[in-house]
Structures are given as structure tokens and as C-alpha cells.
């Protein structure tokens, strides 16, 4: 297993307020890591720092690129970070409107990422868009419609497919199933499970829902007040949590 990401002593303050305190972990190819904790625990801030969307105050985020080179995301140029986010990485926002271009068609949303990496062939872009819509169960007949006409679940699937079109190795997901109906959520989770397996994606997933973490992740990190209180295998944290806060968190959920 190759190491994809190595995070060392990462801290982030908002003024005096500590959002992430001395975070460290390694992520390997194909691993799904769930970051769990209550709202305000710093998990979304951490995710945004990792994806290069927020500058941390301290620490290193070393990414091992496809070309074998190692980049420190904290020190990389804005252009280099943006390039990673539209090629080797993907970012799925909780609110699909933050991750989609709502003013253009679904097909154009997918095509945009391909054009950003230099694809200029209309026929190829169009057929990729069709293929990826199919992959996330969106009827091809909806390809020219605006995402405004899509339901919440469809928008989220479109956002995911837009990210996948460039075959990323690492996806950041911020509460991807939050705010969706339970049945829509279930379908999205099934889809994500399948994609992660088939594409060998590594995922860092922020969720407050332990059921989502159990279903999708192999590893878990429990956060409280900006600190990682415990990390380990998902089944270990759910069945034998060691720290007081993780014990409280796990015992607060109804058994499945």
C-alpha cells in the first residue's frame, strides 16, 4: 500500500479560537477514513485545510502525487493546489450548490473538469459526460438540464460524477449525505460504496453520522474541541472505544 497523504502537527486558529490542534495521520491508497465528532469539533475545518482550501497556521500536509513527487500542500502555490483539486483530487460539498456550477447544464458541469485539464474534443467530452451520468444513475435524457431542475439526491450524484470524471485518487467529502431524505441517503451510500471499491479511491469523509462511517469507512478519527481524541480501525472504535469521549459518542447511538 502506497502512502498518499501524510499530515503532521497540523493546527488551525480562527483568531484566538483553536479549530484544529496538532493533528497527525497517514492515509494510504484506497483507504476510506471517516472523521467523526459533534458540530464545532473542527472536522470540516480540518478537511478544508487538508484539501488546501484553508491555510493552516502550523504543520505539514505531504501529498504523494501520481508522478511520484511529494508536495507540501501548505507551501504549494495556489495554482498547484487548484490543479490538484481538479485532477488527482475531488471535493464533494454537503450542499451540492457549492460544488456545482448551477448556471450551466449537467453535461457542462462534467465537461468543465475535462476541459480544465485540456480536453477540447466535444465528442469525447460529451460521451464521457454521458458515461458518468449513467454511472451515478442519472438518466442520459437529463444531460442538458440545469442542476436547478434536479432533486437534492440527483444534484449530489451529479457533484460526485463531476469529481470522478478526471479519475481522482483522493476524494474529500463533507457530510455528503447530510440534508437528504433517508431513502435518498441510502441510495447515495450504496453508490459511494460501489464507486470507492471499483475505482480504488481513497476518501476522507467528514460525517457526524456513525452509521455512515460504519458503512463506508475502514478507519475512523474521533474529534472533539479541535483535537483527535482517538483514531483506529472503524470496527475497533465502534466495538472497543478507548477514550471517554469516543465511548460516549458510540454509546449515544442506537445499536444497528
Amino acid at each position: 500500500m502506497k502512502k498518499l497523504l501524510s499530515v503532521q502537527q497540523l493546527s488551525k486558529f480562527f483568531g484566538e479560537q483553536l479549530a484544529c490542534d496538532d493533528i497527525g495521520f497517514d492515509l494510504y491508497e484506497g483507504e476510506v477514513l471517516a472523521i467523526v465528532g459533534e458540530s464545532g469539533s473542527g472536522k470540516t475545518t480540518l478537511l478544508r485545510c487538508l484539501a488546501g482550501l484553508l491555510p493552516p497556521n502550523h504543520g505539514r500536509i505531504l501529498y504523494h502525487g501520481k508522478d511520484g513527487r511529494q508536495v507540501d500542500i501548505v507551501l504549494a502555490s495556489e495554482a498547484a493546489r487548484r490543479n490538484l483539486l481538479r485532477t488527482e483530487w475531488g471535493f464533494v460539498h454537503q450542499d451540492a450548490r457549492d460544488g456545482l456550477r448551477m448556471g450551466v447544464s449537467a453535461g457542462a458541469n462534467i465537461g468543465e473538469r475535462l476541459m480544465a485539464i485540456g480536453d477540447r474534443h466535444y465528442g469525447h467530452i460529451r460521451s464521457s459526460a454521458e458515461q458518468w451520468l449513467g454511472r451515478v444513475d442519472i438518466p442520459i435524457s437529463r444531460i442538458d438540464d440545469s442542476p436547478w431542475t434536479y432533486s437534492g439526491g440527483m444534484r449530489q450524484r451529479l457533484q460526485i460524477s463531476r469529481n470522478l470524471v478526471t479519475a481522482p485518487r483522493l476524494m474529500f467529502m463533507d457530510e455528503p449525505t447530510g440534508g437528504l431524505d433517508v431513502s435518498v441517503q441510502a441510495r447515495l451510500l450504496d453508490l459511494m460504496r460501489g464507486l470507492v471499491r471499483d475505482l480504488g479511491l481513497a476518501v476522507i469523509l467528514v460525517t457526524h453520522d456513525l452509521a455512515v462511517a460504519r458503512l463506508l469507512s475502514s478507519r475512523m478519527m474521533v474529534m472533539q474541541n479541535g483535537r483527535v481524541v482517538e483514531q483506529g480501525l472503524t470496527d475497533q472504535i465502534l466495538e472497543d472505544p478507548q477514550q471517554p469521549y469516543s465511548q460516549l459518542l458510540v454509546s449515544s447511538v442506537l445499536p444497528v
Partner: protein
Amino acid sequence: MPQAVSIQNLHKEFILHNQGGTRIPVFSELETEIGVGESVAIVGQSGQGKSSLLKLIFGTYQATSGSINVLHQGAIFNVVAAAPHEILSLRRSTIGYVTQFLRCIPRVAAEDVVAEPLRDRGMALDEARNEARELLSRVNIPERLWHLPPMTFSGGEQQRVNIARGFAAHFPLLLLDEPTASLDAENRARVMTLIEDARARGSTIIGVFHHADERHRVCDREIDIGQQAK
């Protein structure tokens, strides 16, 4: 010759921080060795930690102290000190764990539940599904159920799906936690045959079996957890 599993000075206790720090000791100073290809039954009274021992070897429980060395791809690997990605690799290629409870993944068809460990090792979907179907028929799951999610199956059917899943990948080390509990005689016999096949392939087996006749049938010896630990 390295042992398949070698346990030194293993200590496990649960500390319930939110119940006033109550300590629940499971065992301490557990020492035991299991050779490659051996089939052993863990025996002991209820509550002495038979299932806990299996979960410790699998990495689901965290040891309080001690070491659990497992032979993994020709090298010795201490589960207690391992990083998560190392334990995941151990589970992909070396250790299989079968309980009577199906960790049900909603909406996934029975044949895919069984095929999953094979897919994890990179086997193509069709091939993995064929193997899965073969196993499902061996544990007596009717063909009309194969493409349905096991959530709606009877308890015994779910249990057998889980057993088929556990035996799919031919793991060198199998941890069996009462795999036949609550099955009827016919289905128990089918599961016993699967265990015998795994033994014949050279898998090391560590099992907790409720019935003495099952222990005698598939195990070389017994390890009494009460005598091996404090």
C-alpha cells in the same frame, strides 16, 4: 518454524469511563502458541473471554498490554502494535473471522456479500460471484435468494450467508466464533464440512465451539483459557 499465532503476556480489560471508570477485567498473563495448520478449540467458562480473544487477534478489540504475533505473508506481525492500514492488509490476505452474526450491509445481495472478500483481493466480479454462488449452495441457501439482500432472510439463513463469506477467501488463519450456534443438525453438518475442507487446505483454525462433538470432530486440541491466563 514460526507459529501461526503466538500470544505473550496478553492482558485485556475494559474501562468504562462514563460509568465512573468501572474496570471489567477479561484476562491477564495469557500465553499460548498455535502452530501453522493446527486446529484448536478455545474452551473455558462463559465470560472468561473466549470471544474476546478472537476479537483481539482480529484487531477489533485493543489489547491493554502484551503481544499477539501472527504469521502474515511469511513474516511475524504484532497485531497489538500495528497501524490500521497494516491490520487491514492482514485481514485482506491472512485472517478470516466468522461469527454467528451477520454484519449486514443493507441492500447488498447475498452473493455480493459473500463475494466481497474475494473482490477485496482483486478478483474479477464474475469469477468472485461464481465462487460465492458455489459456497451459498454448499451452505444450503436456495438459489432464488442469492440476488436478494440477506436482511430479510431468517436468522439461520443470515448466519449461513455469513459463514459462506468467511470461507470464501481461503484465509490461512480462520477465527470461528460459534459458527454453528443455533443451526439445525443438517446445516451444522454442512458447516462442519466447510471447516474440514479448510483444514485439509492447511488453514490454521482457532475456534469457539459450543458442542463438544464438534470440537472433537474438527480440532486437534483444546486451549483452556482459564488455565492459560489469570
